[in-house]
């Protein structure tokens, strides 16, 4: 697998395609196959794109949490951002299910001492009245800042920010 990935010098989608073609039998596989690709464009951002299913919520939270920890966020800050991301990914997953092609995209960017996150769904399968409502969004608004919900024909993106005290101290 490492050789397959290392040989790829193109973008993430092409790498995943090559990986699946190389490792998965051409005939119908015996089990579901999930390939997770994380492209770290630079040290200051994290990009995750996965099928929008409930089982992916936990690994997405873990990836975002580890990424923030590695950049000096405190345990409370990591927990709050993971909670917000978890709520938003769940919101996408619950409405995507049982659609097979719904995906959730999470982008995390560090801008000075502030982390900026957006969680998007792709596709227009969610009825507008179901977008962004319920107890989940209330929790998001309580634990992070500048929560903004933007809905277009292409899907919904929820953005938020969170100041990171540890980085503020380092910067000053």
């Amino acid at each position, binding site marked *: 697998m490492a050789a397959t990935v290392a040989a790829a010098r193109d973008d993430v989608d092409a790498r995943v395609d090559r990986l699946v073609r190389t490792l998965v039998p051409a005939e119908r596989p015996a089990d579901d196959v999930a390939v997770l690709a994380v492209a770290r464009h630079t040290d200051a951002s994290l990009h995750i794109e996965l099928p929008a299913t*409930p*089982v992916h*919520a*936990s690994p997405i*939270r873990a990836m975002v949490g580890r990424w923030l920890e590695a950049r000096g966020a405190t345990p409370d800050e990591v*927990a709050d951002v*993971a*909670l917000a991301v*978890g*709520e938003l990914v*769940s919101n996408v*997953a*619950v409405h995507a299910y049982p659609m097979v092609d719904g995906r959730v995209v999470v982008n995390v960017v560090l801008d000075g001492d502030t982390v900026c996150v957006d969680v998007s769904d792709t596709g227009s399968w969610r009825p507008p009245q179901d977008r962004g409502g*319920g*107890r*989940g969004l*209330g*929790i998001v608004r*309580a*634990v992070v800042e500048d929560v903004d919900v933007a809905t277009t024909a292409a899907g919904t993106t929820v953005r938020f920010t969170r100041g990171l005290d540890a980085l503020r101290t380092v910067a000053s």
Partner: protein
Amino acid sequence: MTSDGSSDAATFGSATVRLGRPPLLVAEIDGEIDIANAHDIERFVADACRQDMDRLEIDLTATTYLDSAGLAALVGLAERLDAMRVPISVVAPPGTAAHRVIEITGLVRRLGRVDMPSPG
């Protein structure tokens, strides 16, 4: 599910639920409760509840993640026990993931007696 004679335990994805025995049914939940397992955990605990038991205590001390999906499961259990006229209590000490979310959402009263004393 395994049984060692004194308790039942079952794993649901990233969470493990250990059940004591009535009349005081303690459900100790370790790990993460989220959209992937909340419904199954709710059903597992609900199935163990009996009309003649004294109380259900849900211990979230070792729960490392709880969000609105898990809260919906807790509220579902509280409603079921209300109908059975059996008291429910939730243990979520300060500093735990569960304490934070229960406090934010103001669900303390809805979840019966919530044992989350103030620090200090």
